């Protein structure tokens, strides 16, 4: 009897073990059937159709049989896809777009995306986004082999970029051996975004032209800006929230890239940040916050901070949500103005790529073309620039044609037309001073600057420490 029980148990266990290896396949088949059945009945293309409980965390749009996997680091592109399907329901009937969103914190997005691209197969990304800090890696660098050229997707890219007057730097950064593999939809020239009420109280005027004179806009140095900062401090205001705000200006105004072969190069514009961080700290000119921290967000509401540096997207994605209000008079809403910065810069931007191994080239091409090259009034860029995406924001976009017919007056900036200042900033945008490892190298440099500003090490040691850390990390 014992023997029987023992053998039954053993067989059961081995069977369970063997079944463990095959369950995925059987359930997958079943799931597909049910998904297809439920989705066939659906007509609306809402994100939360939730036909599949196990995948409830993945936002999906559309209800078609063909699945497009989209990888992104914010909800921005998934929202665009939702809008596209809303405007083109027939696309939603043909395709389902599954969105995987991973934040860029600590390089998490790159690690996950690299693994997914390298693994390939059905769940590999068909379409993915890359940010300015690492776009070069995917368009020209280590991961470029996975990117499909827009031509191969069937997009007549040369004619269309010329017709749409796409900003040349967007094309340069997104090209591999002269073939476009990635395009952005934004133009990310930077401006100085300042508080009108503080300007009025301290300088007696909030007029953009006057403020530009006071801070030395376009002068290429910070002399006048520091004078203004001292005046602001006397009146109890901080010129910026923290050193990180000025880092974006220093980093993206540079004319030399971090690396020249295996050699670490510190462009003078970037080296200047060491002194800027030190001065801000020693003279107490800022609130000493770090970007993307709670304290930094808090400074965007009604605080003592005079200005932020950023492109139009900083207003859209960060400032509007953190200003502490939704109408003029609430928080700092409506109290912001835009003018040219002392040193020209650009910051960020998102590029869209397609996997060369995608089976859904046709569908991916449709979305990509709509996002990056469509200049019509129903194209993404027009909606994006004219507050028709429903987020109460207007962004500068890559297409000159679209910019020419868009209106940049924004309630958040007291009805000011914000586009001229940001468009002027676009002249500073170029891919020449970028490397594919910028995200990592920037972090090392900012850390060295913080150590120097906090008085932990001296200036030479900061440079030495930075250079050594980069060499060690990259094993040069």
């Amino acid at each position: 009897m014992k023997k029987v029980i023992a053998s039954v148990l053993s067989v059961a266990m081995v069977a369970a073990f063997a079944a463990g290896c095959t369950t995925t396949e059987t359930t997958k088949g079943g799931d597909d059937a049910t998904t297809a059945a439920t989705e066939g009945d659906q007509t609306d293309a809402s994100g939360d159709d939730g036909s599949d409980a196990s995948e409830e965390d993945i936002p999906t749009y559309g209800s078609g049989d063909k699945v497009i996997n989209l990888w992104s680091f914010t909800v921005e592109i998934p929202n665009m896809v939702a809008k596209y399907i809303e405007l083109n329901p027939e696309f939603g009937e043909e395709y389902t777009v599954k969105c995987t969103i991973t934040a860029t914190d600590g390089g998490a997005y790159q690690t996950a995306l690299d693994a997914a691209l390298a693994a390939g197969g059905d769940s590999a990304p068909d379409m993915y986004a890359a940010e300015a800090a690492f776009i070069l890696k995917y368009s020209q660098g280590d991961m470029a082999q996975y990117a499909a050229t827009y031509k191969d997707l069937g997009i007549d890219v040369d004619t269309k970029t010329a017709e749409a007057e796409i900003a040349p730097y967007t094309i340069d950064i997104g090209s591999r051996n002269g073939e476009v593999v990635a395009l952005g939809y934004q133009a990310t020239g930077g401006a100085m975004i300042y508080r009108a009420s503080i300007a009025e109280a301290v300088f007696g005027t909030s007029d953009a032209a006057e403020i530009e004179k006071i801070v030395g806009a376009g002068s290429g140095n910070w002399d006048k800006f520091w004078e203004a900062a001292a005046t602001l401090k006397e009146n109890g205001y901080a010129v910026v929230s923290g050193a990180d705000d000025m880092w974006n200006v220093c980093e993206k105004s540079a004319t030399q890239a971090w690396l020249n072969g295996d050699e670490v190069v510190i462009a003078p514009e970037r080296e200047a940040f060491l002194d800027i961080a030190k001065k801000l700290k020693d003279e107490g000119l800022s609130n000493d916050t770090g970007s993307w921290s709670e304290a930094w967000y808090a400074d965007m509401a009604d605080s003592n901070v005079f200005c932020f540096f950023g492109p139009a997207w900083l207003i859209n994605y960060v400032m509007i949500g953190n200003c502490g209000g939704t109408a003029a008079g609430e928080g700092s809403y409506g109290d912001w103005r835009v003018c040219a910065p002392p040193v020209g810069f650009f910051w960020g931007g998102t590029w869209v790529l397609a996997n060369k191994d995608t089976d859904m080239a046709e569908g991916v091409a449709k979305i990509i073309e709509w996002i990056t090259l469509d200049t019509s009034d129903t194209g993404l860029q027009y909606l994006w620039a004219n507050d028709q995406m429903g987020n109460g924001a207007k962004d500068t976009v890559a297409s000159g044609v679209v910019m020419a017919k868009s209106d940049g007056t924004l309630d958040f900036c007291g009805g000011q037309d914000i586009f001229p200042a940001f468009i002027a900033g676009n002249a500073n945008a170029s891919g020449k001073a970028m490397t594919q490892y910028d995200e990592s190298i920037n972090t090392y440099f900012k850390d060295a600057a913080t150590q120097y500003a906090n008085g932990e090490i001296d200036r030479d040691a900061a440079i030495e420490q930075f250079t050594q850390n980069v060499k060690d990390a990259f094993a040069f």
Partner: protein
Amino acid sequence: MRNKKLVNYAKYGYLFSIPFILTFLIFTLYPIVYTFLIGFTDLSGAGNTTWHLITSKDAVGGPKGLFDNFIAVLTNGSFQKAFSNTVIIWTINFVPQLGFALLFTAWFTDRRSKVKGSGIFKILFYMPNIITAATVAILFNVLFGYPKGAVNDIIIGFSKLFGVQKELMQSDPKAWELAVMFDFNNNAWALKLIVAFIQFYQWYGYTMVNLVAGVIGISPEIFEAAEIDGANRVQTFFRVTLPCIRQILLFVLVTSLIGGLNMFDVPQLYADEKRANGAIMTLNMFVRSQGLDNRYLYNKAAAASVIMFIVIVALSAIIFFILRDKDEAKLKKLRKQELKALKKGM
């Protein structure tokens, strides 16, 4: 037919262990062997899977010495930093951890004065071990935030109470606040101490539970004998309890050493390997950043892992040697000598 009643159950034992052995072979042994192998190749680059032995002439960048990856890792400044960080953080965490665990063990197992509610305390002390490292790391990061954080708020409160830099406080309160606050998360030693403290806070309860279990296992007769002989509490603890839980101590030391050298989640989530000149970059964080960041130097990461493996094995061996049962070792030696003598005599 005697054999009919004697069923051999051993084969079922083998059968039942198949799942474990298979998983072990596929998911543990194979990766370990593969890691050793990769350490001697040129495998690197995002998404790359083709490799050559580093000594072959097809290797990227030409043939190199067999141990080139290992030499590169050992001479890498970040590796050296990671090594010393790991040792420092582990030591700062382990010494008080074992100290407190022993102290609580002594209290909770004391036969003469029963601590009231010792069960509750044991559970409470064990609790931090249940919370995931990610949660604790992020919680502490927020607590020690700058310029907004609970600890800095406390510092401001006390500074106000004791009137630190009173003139500045009255003339420019904002500047005064920044002056008295401390940027914990960008200071090398503050970071090390905080991470060591988190490790201590998470693991002292676990260590204590292990030690208590060891003490409970000691035969009460030994304690009674000590009592009758007039040993006081301190003497009992050091002369009776400690020697009797040597095996458990060995277990605690070895597991903690392995865990400590593998330390990864708390420092990685508290602040990454770049913060404050790599102040809390541990060996595992170094391996991750070499292998899964930037240039994807799988071969260098594998070499670093192998070095870690060797270090752990060597240190564990040393601990085993130090804490071995000396009397038993002596007996063994004697027996061997006797055997030898016997053999010679024959």
